[in-house]
């Protein structure tokens, strides 16, 4: 996936001289996760820059550069670091178009690595979509592999709004054939049905897409798996259309249960598909705990394919939300 990201950025830099890249160690070192490989060599130190450890400064600089004529792609190494620069994302970048009465545009991309699975501990392993949900003026998408990372990154760079792209860290090393070119651009705000099915709609995002697919592929039930891809805006019609057919919705989230992105989906679908749902909407999430260290615990934090399979089976057979694995523990 990291190569797909480098390539997407590189192609867009070729296409448009106003695209610039900066972040911590993205230039000389080609990115802590090698997502800017070759960019410095190809485009030079004016367009590809290493920054100090100053997330507020460089996100703010992205805002200013975007408003005045560049198209910056800024990298936040771990999404948690957005915490030290949050104002620039949700209060400045998001509102500058509005605050100029529509006269300034803010075509900037904020990329960040997210997620558990690599033993980075509780301050470097979250997905944190919840921080951004509902922010007027911001778009947000999440890659689920090389192909979608490529397609979303290109769409984000061409968009004239501030766009956040989250990249599941465990997927950087994943290899996948990616068709390149404009046809592979994934419009922001569109979900993809990645597996057709009839019994249940399973909405997943980022790292949980492959989990949901794996669960569905060997299940006794017929699951329609949707890769949501974008959270702001999110593709209501694709989800609702599917739920109307299947009568069941399961949401598979990497985040903690409370306040997770699935609450947004669940509350909308519960409302709009009321009467159509043949069982409660069931959210499969991590428990409300900091992401633990240690491979076994961290693995347990993220819903597994077997667990998803089991939970969905239970939901479909009982028409009741099964309890979560941790309920007997806490």
């Amino acid at each position, binding site marked *: 996936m990291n190569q797909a990201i480098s390539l997407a950025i590189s192609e867009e830099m070729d296409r448009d001289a106003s695209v610039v890249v900066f972040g911590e160690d993205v230039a000389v070192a080609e990115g802590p996760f090698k997502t800017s490989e070759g960019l410095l060599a190809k485009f030079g130190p004016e367009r590809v820059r290493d920054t*100090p450890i*100053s997330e507020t*400064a460089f996100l703010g600089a*992205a*805002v200013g550069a975007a408003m*005045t004529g560049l198209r*910056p792609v800024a990298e936040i190494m771990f999404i948690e670091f957005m915490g030290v620069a949050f104002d620039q994302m949700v209060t*400045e970048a998001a509102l500058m178009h509005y605050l*100029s009465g529509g006269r*300034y545009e803010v075509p900037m991309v904020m990329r960040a690595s997210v997620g558990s699975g690599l033993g980075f501990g509780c301050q470097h392993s979250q997905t944190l979509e919840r921080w951004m949900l509902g922010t007027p003026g911001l778009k947000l998408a999440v890659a689920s592999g090389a192909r979608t990372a490529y397609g979303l990154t290109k769409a984000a760079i061409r968009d004239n709004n501030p766009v956040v792209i989250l990249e599941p860290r465990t997927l950087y090393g994943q290899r996948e054939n990616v068709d390149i070119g404009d046809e592979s651009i994934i419009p922001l705000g569109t979900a993809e049905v990645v597996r057709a099915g009839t019994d249940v709609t399973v909405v997943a995002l980022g790292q949980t897409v492959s989990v949901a697919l794996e669960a569905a592929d060997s299940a006794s039930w017929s699951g329609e798996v949707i890769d949501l891809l974008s959270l702001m805006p999110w593709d209501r019609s694709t989800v609702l259309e599917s739920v109307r057919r299947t009568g069941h919705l399961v949401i598979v989230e990497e985040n903690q249960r409370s306040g997770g992105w699935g609450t947004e989906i669940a509350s909308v679908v519960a409302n709009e598909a009321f009467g159509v749902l043949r069982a409660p909407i069931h959210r499969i999430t991590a428990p409300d705990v900091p992401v633990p260290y240690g491979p076994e615990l961290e693995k347990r934090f993220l819903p597994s394919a077997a667990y998803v399979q089991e939970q969905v089976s239970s939901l479909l057979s009982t028409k009741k939300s099964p309890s979560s694995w941790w309920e007997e523990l806490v």
Partner: protein
Amino acid sequence: MSDTASPEVPQSTQRRHEVNQSPIARLERMIEIRLVEDRIQDLFAQGLVSGTTHTSQGQEAVAVGLAAATRATDFVCCTYRGHGHALALGMPPAVVLGEVLGRQIGCMGGVGGSMHLSDPDVGLLPTFAIVGAGTPVAVGAALQFATKKTDGVALSVFGDGATNIGAFHEGLNLAAVWNLPVVFVCENNLYGEYSPLESTTAVTDIADRAASYAMASEIVDGQDVDAVQASIARAVARARSGGGPTLVEAKTYRYVGHSRSDKAPYRKDGELEQWLARDPIELFAGQLLASGELNPDALDAMRHRQLQLIDEAQERVLASPTAAIPRMFENILSPSHS
């Protein structure tokens, strides 16, 4: 999707150039700012506006000096205390007043309010309501100039209190490391809200903080418009010629409270009087009178003209409807892409 251009906008470019052209025009602009700010206070006092506002009486020389030292193609990031800068840079009084009063004639059609003025025609980015937020944004505008290899300059204007926030530090360091064409202008008016400088800030001269970034700095008398213009012009020249950023500290004072509701009980005894004795408008008018560039009648006429213009502007603003409900749904996301 949106009515992007206010009918007043073309006028701002023209007004932008006036302050570059003559001392008389600069004096007149300072008078305009003072009168507009006073008017805003009056309108609030009369209950014609709700909400809050932050006016800048006493600080006019900084705004006009800055405008005089820069070009319409430069970019400026100001704060919630931005009416004076917006006017100095060319935004017409009716557009400022209109936004403050929530009218359609305002630069945001009235949905933004006093803290949110902007005018792309003269390089005024939306003024920043979060302390410090504009500083890195100005650095980004400067990055744009540097990347495109044009000779533009970005300016970041902020208060003394803002130099205690992280964004200030990060912004100055980044500008220095990347050697960007940006001028940081601190309006040191001795208070951040109700707190005197010394209770919140470990140094007396903000300019001293430039050393942390190996950055050039200057302290200037913020009540002397010529001095401000000259100081910022030096910094701008350095920036345009690739010499990197500068921190300019203008010592100034606000005659009014921090915001609408503040009666400023925290002032030191005699302090206000001392500053009033060095009023930037009186000083500059006195100078021009002394040099013969201006005569008392012309000054009187100028004051009257400005008063009349502002009366007219106010009339137009009050005739302009308040923002219509649909306006709140506009300009949230841009529909376009590259």
